[in-house]
């Protein structure tokens, strides 16, 4: 799911009230919890003026009439300040982390813009979690050894773990031989890759029979 701030990329806010309202909307969606009584959850105009005076939010350079024009970078600065305050960092430290940072650096601080990375990350995460589960299931001399898997293939399980996000489907190739396919698996995209996959499966089967004797 995209970060609430992402849809504000490229937008401008004319005047402090409009800017404060945009900040309030995003922070309400992010649902911050702050315990300290002196720090307000949702920033009002007075708070934002204070942040500008303290150099936490860059003073806007653009004007429309008498109203200051704020942009996406100012919004990121505002959200970052509230996030770091929620982590109980002092103002001095927050200024260090936020002042003078580019949009990209602020987005990175807030974990914004990593949607395709998130997909890749969840694949790596699922893989590692399955390794942990597998090693725990087969601990101890009385447990059978884990099956050998071709390099790169995530180990399958006879029954999917309820806590894992992906599901597995068993497909019979022929009596005595099954493929376990994870729900988010995408197959090879070229003839060469398909051939290579078939070779690896064949090698694995041959190795299984050799070891069986």
């Amino acid at each position, binding site marked *: 799911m995209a970060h609430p701030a992402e849809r504000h990329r490229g937008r401008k806010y004319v005047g402090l009230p409009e800017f404060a309202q945009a900040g309030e909307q995003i922070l309400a969606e992010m649902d911050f919890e702050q315990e300290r009584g002196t720090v307000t959850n949702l920033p009002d105009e007075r708070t934002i003026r204070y942040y500008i005076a303290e150099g936490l939010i860059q003073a806007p350079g653009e004007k429309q009439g008498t109203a200051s024009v704020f942009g996406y970078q100012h919004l990121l600065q505002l959200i970052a300040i509230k996030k*770091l305050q929620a982590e109980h*960092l002092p103002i001095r*430290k927050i200024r*260090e*982390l936020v002042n003078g*940072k*580019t949009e*990209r*650096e602020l987005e*990175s*601080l807030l*974990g914004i*813009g*990593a949607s*395709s*990375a*998130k997909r*890749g*990350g*969840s*694949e*790596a*995460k699922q*893989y*590692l*979690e399955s*390794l*942990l589960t597998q*090693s725990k299931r087969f*601990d101890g001399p009385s447990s059978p050894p*884990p099956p*050998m*898997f071709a*390099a*790169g*293939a*995530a180990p399958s399980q006879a029954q999917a773990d309820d806590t894992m996000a992906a599901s597995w489907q068993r497909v019979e190739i022929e009596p005595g031989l099954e493929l376990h396919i994870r729900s988010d698996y995408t197959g090879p995209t070229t003839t*060469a*890759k398909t051939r*290579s996959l078939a070779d690896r499966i064949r090698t694995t089967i041959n190795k299984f029979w050799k070891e069986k004797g």
Partner: protein
Amino acid sequence: MTQQHPKIEFFTTYPKLEADREQIVDVLIRITPPELAPSEKSRPDLNISLVLDRSGSMEGEKMVRARNAAMYCVDQMLVTDRLSVVAFDDHIDVLFPSEPVGNKAGMKDLIRRVTARGSTALHEAWVRGGLTVSEHLLDQGINRVILITDGLANVGVTSTDEIVSQAMGLFQRGVSTSTVGIGANFNEDLLMPMAHSGGGNAWHVVEPHDIEEIFKFELQGLISRFGHTVSLALVPADGVRIVDLLNDFELTETGRFRLPDLQSGGPLDIVVQLKVGAQAVGTTMRLLDLRLGFTPQDLKNAEVVREHQIVEFAPNYEVERLSKNNEVAKATQFLMNARARNEAMKRMDLGEYGAAKDLIAGTLRETIAACAPMMSTPSVMQEAAALEDALESLKDRAKDKLNRKKLAYAAYRHRSGK
């Protein structure tokens, strides 16, 4: 980073080949990525987990140096980078999960408190470190686990084949693994293939005071990475045959050679031996076609660079009067030395210490002969010194473990152009 391509150069010992005879030709292919612009903003974001062995054997200077190296890492990173630290013995402690490197003092304080105790649950610690990285995977940054250990995996999963296979599996899912082995008692037959299959670097720290230097190389390598997922295809012309590729690169699933990451400004030397049929005087011939595929650090899609080598054939007396390129002999010899080291290790494993010693002695003689014009250059002096050291150490059985590691890591460095 602007889109630029690596420079690809072909060198033979002499700029022309002898005519009228069939011959084996050593071709040095040098791939040099462009230098990075001197700006922090052009360097990739890093998402790293340091997985730090705190088992009992790390007690003393090793633990101190490992902590200092971890703190060095913290100091080099930017607020746009992410870091986590996992300390392990037979228990796994996530000192802090992956977070932006904002509170450096706090991070260093936690690292400073790590002390040595317990056994070595290496596999689970590596998995935990990988989890902290994968929870915040960077799309166009570098996602890596750096495993630092002085010992053997003796708790949990311990099978080398399994762990190496899993490191490859994790690399295919976007997280690479580097390993740092300290001293003489870790298992190089685990750590080296783990890093190789895991898409990272394998380092050997002989003395604890070298740990920080190794970390500088590792971080510098990450920061200056120009391209990854690098593959090489070589297609010889008609009448030319590839006899050998001395770097012993592995093959990818599409039959190309798998190369290490490309580092900005850092040349990668590859030596291929070609059998070339007799050609008449004055012939100009396209000898070899090259296809280099790589994914630039700051882009998602792969790029392809194609080059070819053209040579001219001349009479023998004319060729011998031309300037000799000693770099070709040096690069060839160093790669042959890597093979000799691997062979010496096999002999040591069989208890054939005399044969191992003879191999290294012969390799040293060949190096001195082949690289004579370049004996005063630092790289040749270093190589000769390393071979002399190996020869001396082979006389003492007590040094076998350490000696084997030195041979293994030196061979690995030469083959991957480091």
